């Protein structure tokens, strides 16, 4: 087991820069998830750590040693691929033991390790089958088993759950977390699914256009996003971004959303945003759960307004409501019993204590 460090790592393909100088420190035993939209450079970064791609610039260190020119087999890593990459002509046991056999481990030890990994992953009964005879979920377990038996310094996962159906994905997500809790191997996991990222990671690395946008625990990313990209990428349904501007009215700082909707900011927020120029083009970032139905007793900082709903989506435990504010589509989450109906007027409450204010041009959260 070991820590992993990336120093100003760059990957160029001809004249395209896929990864643009990223720095990342991954602690021993840590579970790190690289997340971002397709083409953001997350898989390339993982493959550079694995040694499957050369790096154009910078350094990659595993356990303190620079491994830039070390071939994959000597990096002491194990990787789980999106398509599992199981050897179709080998049985499950042969697949799992392949790496150990190449390294000439004693037969007894190979058997012991394979048996232990199979027990851990609950695939003991499948040990003599060929990959063809396994379901997607079982293949995924075998691929993980192949990684575990090697007892490597680092586990690398490249979108391992993308090929599974939604239900199995949730199940395997929990399995992966359980396995990590047991073996505690440093893990780098790549996904484009922010739910997977949030549920699995000790820390999440959000990537966009070859750069790291933000690194943080799932809660930090959710509650304190640094940029508009992170704020919009993490969370489902996504955060609302409503054009707004700040005004001073009678000594209090107000946020104006439309000609007829303007609210005074809560004192803490007002103090924070007071120094901002009033001319800046701003965006109010508000998660759907902070736009709910109006109550009789509202907390300070929660303001209400009347709107006409466009569409409602009953989800069972909540109802998503969609409406427009001066043409900007906005989503809210209301109680299923609050009486939200398509095309009907409704009084909604906006929790400004949980608001974010963003600079529209730079995308930075202020």
């Amino acid at each position: 087991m070991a820590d992993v460090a990336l120093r100003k790592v760059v990957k160029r393909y001809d004249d395209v820069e896929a990864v643009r100088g990223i720095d990342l420190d991954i602690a021993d035993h840590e579970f790190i998830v690289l997340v971002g939209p397709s083409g953001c450079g997350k898989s390339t970064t993982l493959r550079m750590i694995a040694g499957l791609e050369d790096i154009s610039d910078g350094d990659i260190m595993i356990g303190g040693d620079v491994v830039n020119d070390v071939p994959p087999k000597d990096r002491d890593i194990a990787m789980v691929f999106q398509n599992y990459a199981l050897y179709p002509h080998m049985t499950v046991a042969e697949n799992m033991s392949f790496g150990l056999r190449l390294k000439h481990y004693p037969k007894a030890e190979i058997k012991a390790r394979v048996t232990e990994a199979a027990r851990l992953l609950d695939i003991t009964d499948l040990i003599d089958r060929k990959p063809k005879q396994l379901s997607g979920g079982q293949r995924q377990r075998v691929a993980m088993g192949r990684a575990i038996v090697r007892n490597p310094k680092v586990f690398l996962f490249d979108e391992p759950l993308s090929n599974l159906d939604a239900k199995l994905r949730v199940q395997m997500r929990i399995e992966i977390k359980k396995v990590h809790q047991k073996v505690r191997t440093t893990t780098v996991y790549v996904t484009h699914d922010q739910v997977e990222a949030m549920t699995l990671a000790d820390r999440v690395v959000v990537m966009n256009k070859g750069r790291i946008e933000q690194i943080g625990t799932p809660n930090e990313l959710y509650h304190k996003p640094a940029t508009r990209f992170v704020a919009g990428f993490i969370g489902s349904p996504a955060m609302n971004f409503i054009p707004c501007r700040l005004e001073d009215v009678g000594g209090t700082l107000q946020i104006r959303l439309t000609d007829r909707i303007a609210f005074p900011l809560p004192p803490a927020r007002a103090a924070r945003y007071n120094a901002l120029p009033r001319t800046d083009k701003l965006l109010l970032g508000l998660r759907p759960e902070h736009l709910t139905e109006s109550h009789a007793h509202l907390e300070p900082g929660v303001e209400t307004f009347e709107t006409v709903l466009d569409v409602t989506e009953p989800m069972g435990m909540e109802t998503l409501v969609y409406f427009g504010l001066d043409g900007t589509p906005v989503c809210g989450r209301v109680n299923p019993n609050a009486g939200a109906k398509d095309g009907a007027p409704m009084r909604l409450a906006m929790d400004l204590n949980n608001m974010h204010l963003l600079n529209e041009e730079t995308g930075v959260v202020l």
Partner: protein
Amino acid sequence: MADVVVERGRVARATGARKGKSLRNALGRKSTVAFFLTLPLILLIALLVLYPAFYSVHLATLNKAMTKFVGLGNFTFLFKRETFWMVVQQSCIFAITAVIFKAMIGFVVAHFVHNIPAKGQRKWRGMLLVPWVIPPAMSTLAWLWLFDPSYSAFNYTLSFFGVGPIPWLGETFWARFSVILVNVWYGAPFFMIMYLAALKSVPDQLYEAAAIDGANWWQRIWYVTLPMMRNIIAITTLFSLIVTFANFDIVRILTSGGPLDTTHLFATWAFQVGIQSSDIPLGACVSLFMVPILAVAAIFILRDVTKRGNEA
């Protein structure tokens, strides 16, 4: 296919209720329809393959004048002739050696071509296929000139190194070497293109997984490439073995079986015995000997193909 079923069902309905029903049932079955649809091809194959095959069996049981039934007389006569056993031996040496070299060269060249960047690959693939697309009768004539003992390019070039002249087609060893060389030159591109297709179907991720598992390039070939290509290798080898075993044109043009019949194959010897020496029954008898030998090879090579086909 459904249209045909309906059409035939309609016709059957018109010919009386009871009879119509059973006929309609029979015609309605997919297998029956499939049989009728393939019938023209079955008849064609029967005409072009089965009839000549059985006719040659019939011929092999006649005397030289084709007037009397002699049973297995021709076969027992062949068994006693030394030349026959030499032809069996030479056919096996020729086919096995040529196929092994074609397979090895094809495998190596396919790897080289596979690793050429996509841009230039088509050009190389096309050029490497040239020997295979030239009619062998034509290209062998060029080889015949190259092998000429006095005026050939080979011996001329070798003379600069103080070697030769080599009697390429005049001495048993060199004549056997030469016919095998030309056959390898002609057949290797076929293996190359088949192996290249097989190589392209191996997912890159398997190599990456193997690289991470600690396999060096040789272990990657041994544990990933070869097992993934097993079926293609088996089928290509069998196909080539049959074609090489039955080769006619290369030997016919280069040596006509000489010197002293030592380069004869079944086909060229059958031609010589049957057509040139006008003993058609004996010629038919010679060519029939290829069947059991190739059948044994086919059984050995294709033994596991269907089973393995289910793995991937």
